[in-house]
């Protein structure tokens, strides 16, 4: 196995997690035209959620994803009523500021409780070794979990009535209301799902690397890059774009110092924003 291939496989694996993180952001943005700046802190809360649950109950960390997704959903409902419901029809500046304010508060509370010292979730699955390269079990499990969750979301959006309602509101809110769909409830559920996705991606990351309450910010930035690359509206598109980003990182890193990668990503981000506002897969926001 060559170094470049190993690197790209690693990139593919972590890219699935980037994609999962971005799906939450993309869903919320696509459905209610709100750019959720609490995204990073919700990812971080997912990390700590996994840490706390795993410290309390020493079972397979991946089984703990279920309570974390449920918890993320509930948290999303709280944040919706705190900061999002009132900005849905207002200027984007207001929604940016409102969600950003909540973000600051969550980070502040998180710092007060957990400080900024690094935490770890000490759970490992055995990896797969091919030649000289080993792909750690946690990375593989995280990628599989990300894909499974994405498929579940796709099923929900396209095979259930609730999912259809969300898509309807996302396409045309007034028409949906005329059809008798309670848009407030739909928006709330969509937002909560978005947060649950963010929290689950955080939970997966916690099994891979050490983290603090501030670690979510990096994934939030990557989520923006992925969401903009993918365009809005299609969660699977976000997953694919995340994998693409991971592959790009893996393909580039054998050739240049790893510390140049953020520059490439953000250069790409700004260029895509300017020249490809609709992204590669989906549609731009209304």
């Amino acid at each position: 196995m060559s170094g470049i291939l190993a690197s790209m496989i690693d990139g593919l694996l972590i890219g699935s997690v980037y994609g999962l993180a971005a799906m939450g952001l993309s869903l919320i943005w696509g459905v209610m035209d709100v750019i959720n700046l609490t995204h990073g802190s919700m990812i971080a809360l997912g990390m700590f959620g996994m840490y706390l649950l795993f410290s309390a109950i020493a079972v397979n960390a991946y089984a703990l994803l279920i309570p974390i997704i449920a918890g993320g959903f509930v948290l999303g409902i709280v944040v919706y009523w705190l900061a999002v419901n009132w900005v849905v029809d207002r200027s984007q500046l207001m929604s940016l500021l409102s969600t950003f304010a909540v973000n600051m508060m969550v980070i502040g509370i998180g710092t007060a409780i957990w400080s900024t010292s690094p935490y770890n979730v000490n759970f490992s699955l055995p990896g797969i070794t091919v030649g000289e390269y080993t792909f750690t079990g946690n990375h593989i499990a995280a990628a599989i979990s990300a894909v499974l969750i994405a498929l579940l979301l796709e099923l929900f959006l396209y095979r259930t009535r609730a999912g259809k309602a969300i898509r309807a509101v996302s396409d045309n809110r007034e028409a949906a209301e005329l059809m008798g769909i309670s848009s407030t409830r739909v928006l709330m559920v969509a937002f909560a799902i978005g947060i649950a996705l963010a929290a689950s991606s955080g939970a997966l990351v916690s099994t891979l690397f050490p983290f603090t309450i501030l670690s979510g910010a990096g994934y939030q930035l990557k989520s923006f890059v992925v969401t903009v690359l993918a365009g809005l509206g299609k969660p699977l598109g976000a997953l694919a774009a995340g994998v693409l980003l991971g592959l790009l990182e893996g393909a580039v890193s054998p050739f240049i110092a790893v510390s140049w990668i953020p520059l490439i990503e953000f250069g790409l981000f700004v260029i895509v924003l300017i020249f490809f506002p609709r992204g590669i897969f989906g549609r731009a926001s209304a």
Partner: protein
Amino acid sequence: MKRMFLIALLLFFSLAATAFSQQTITLGFTVSRTGALNVDSLEQYRGFELWRDTVNVAGGIKAGGKSYKVQFASYDDESNSKRVQQLYTRMILEDKADFLFSPYSSSLTATAAIVTEQYEKIMLTTGAAEEKTYKLGNQHLYQMFAPATQYLTAALDALKAKDPKAAVAFVYEDASFSVAVVTPAKAYAQQLGFNVAFSEAYAPNTADFGALIDKVIASKATVLLGGGHYADGSTLARQLYGHKVPLKMIALLVAPDSPQWSELGDAALGVIVPSQWEPQSTFKAQYGPSGADFGKAYTAKYNAPPSYESAGGYASGLILQHAIEQAGGIDTAKVAEALNATDLTTFYGRTKFSTQASEHGLQVGHTIFLAQWQKDKAGQPVKQVVWPLAGKSADLAYPIPR
């Protein structure tokens, strides 16, 4: 008669009082209680604290007919250099610190040094091995740690004896300390005839070493040198183990010296750390406690063996105390003179500061050991001194058991 007696008594007590009038001296420093440096910084703080308690129990520092109780003005810098600037300014201006100790780590110390030099206060630096800070034209800095250049050159000397043709990889934190260690080490490696197969610095606060590890494997290196501090060093070791990288020798900076290192389990074994001090060292102390007494007192108070950060902290206190005694008081100019003239061996080793203007305060008396984590007879992981050969407590295990 009675009146005479009373007056005599009064005179006697007032004389006694002035002879041993109790003063206090305030020492200012920050501790990284939170943030990435918290593990190492706390160990340094414990060294300071143990020294202070020992001195105060004995009645304080005795100089010029007075005795000075030591009190600390200390804050949490959160491993953040901006906080360091604000807090050192505060300690000097508002807490009226007489002397300063450095924060932990070369980069935070470089920041603090700017403030202490601006206000012309003496600062003893510990937990800071980078040399550049002392070459910027200072007048009141004094370095306790042996300089960064020595850290990995010692490891390369040890490697030369085992495998003179090894392929070496340098993976290190892009921060002042590790860069100051690795830059001369790379040149020395080439000088000794090693093949430098790979070298890359990672951004501070990196948590994901996957891409770097893949590159190390691709380079076919069998020796890895580098790291930074506890957080990144421990993560790197863990991930190297998880990726089953076929390394025969791993030497990481700082992190493996902490007693917490054993928490890594199997990933901890075999890792070498360049060290400023180990409990097995046998220096004859001209001043202060012996190594064994220091170790005993530390373990009794903190339920853990001292790391070299703690030793450095305690030694800083000792050296300052000695200088104040020599100076007969706490006047900055006199104490600076006394520090410049210091050439003393304590449990920590020999301490002597350079007095050349181009590198004032650089440590020129102290040297580096190498310690390695090995299983003792009971199967427990312990640190053994493996270099220099003259003072070793066990042989260097090469290749490391993986």
